[in-house]
């Protein structure tokens, strides 16, 4: 069965890049949903069965760490892997994300090969 993925980023440019790279991994991916902030992402989770979330940290309305905390606090969503993709490269932000339950962390900027390799790793881990 194809994996359903949610990409959360306030930048439409980054969402477009991630959509393209995810399709290029050659993995079995179904719908790739998009959200522009944490609130929109929570709404998407309510309405769809998501297998993997890729989320930015620095976003308006609800940032990525608040969103991650909400996901991990929910009995229904706590097992969904959430990978943070962000320019926030500081050790404290990484530690905070890991402490909140992030499954991984990818720092922007990235080359197409780097992000493809990372996403393939995460997808292989969640795909049956």
């Amino acid at each position, binding site marked *: 069965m194809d994996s359903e993925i949610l990409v959360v980023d306030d930048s439409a440019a980054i969402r477009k890049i991630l959509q393209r790279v995810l399709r290029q991994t050659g993995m079995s991916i179904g719908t790739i949903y998009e959200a522009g902030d944490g609130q929109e992402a929570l709404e998407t989770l309510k309405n769809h069965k998501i297998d993997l979330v890729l989320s930015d940290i620095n976003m308006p309305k609800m940032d990525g760490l608040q969103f991650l905390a909400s996901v991990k606090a929910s009995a229904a969503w706590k097992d969904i892997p959430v990978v943070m993709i962000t320019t926030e*490269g500081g050790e404290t932000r990484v530690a905070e994300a890991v402490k909140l339950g992030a499954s991984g962390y990818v720092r922007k*900027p990235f080359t197409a090969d780097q992000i493809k390799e990372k996403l393939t790793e995460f997808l292989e881990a969640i795909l049956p």
Partner: protein
Amino acid sequence: MTELENLIAGSIARSTLEVFSTMLDAQVALGTVSVESRSPEASDGVVSFIGLAGAWAGAGSLACSPSMACRICSRMLMTESPAVDDEVLDAVAELTNMVIGGVKTDLEPSLGPLGLSIPTVVYGKNFKAKGAGITEWIVASFEWEEERLIVRVCLAPTVVAHASHHGANVPYPLEV
């Protein structure tokens, strides 16, 4: 330039070269680096701003021509971008986020934790931009395919809440 200005200038160069190399698969060449104490002259084109806040506060800014903004978008998204539109402005915003985000990460070991705001991008003609309370910008120019990108950063110490921890209202000390 002071020790901090050199640190910021070096970080701007490193971060800009890295972002262009990774996200656009492009090599930019560092041109001049200077400290400017007045606001930029009225200009045309695309200008972005992003705020930095913490024990040191200020802003970062990128400026380029409309054609360079279109080229940045085309390379970043692998798409055709013949004119400045929402997608082009969004690509410049993300480029700003990554370049100044890289500077922020470089500076945090010396200046303490810094927050990064959401970027704003302006596209127009004959406009002038000024940051309130900003007196000096570290300005670096980069050349890319006969176009010029200007990256500016300004940072100044703020009186911080935890200063009372040190027993006085002093800014976060620079530790290089």
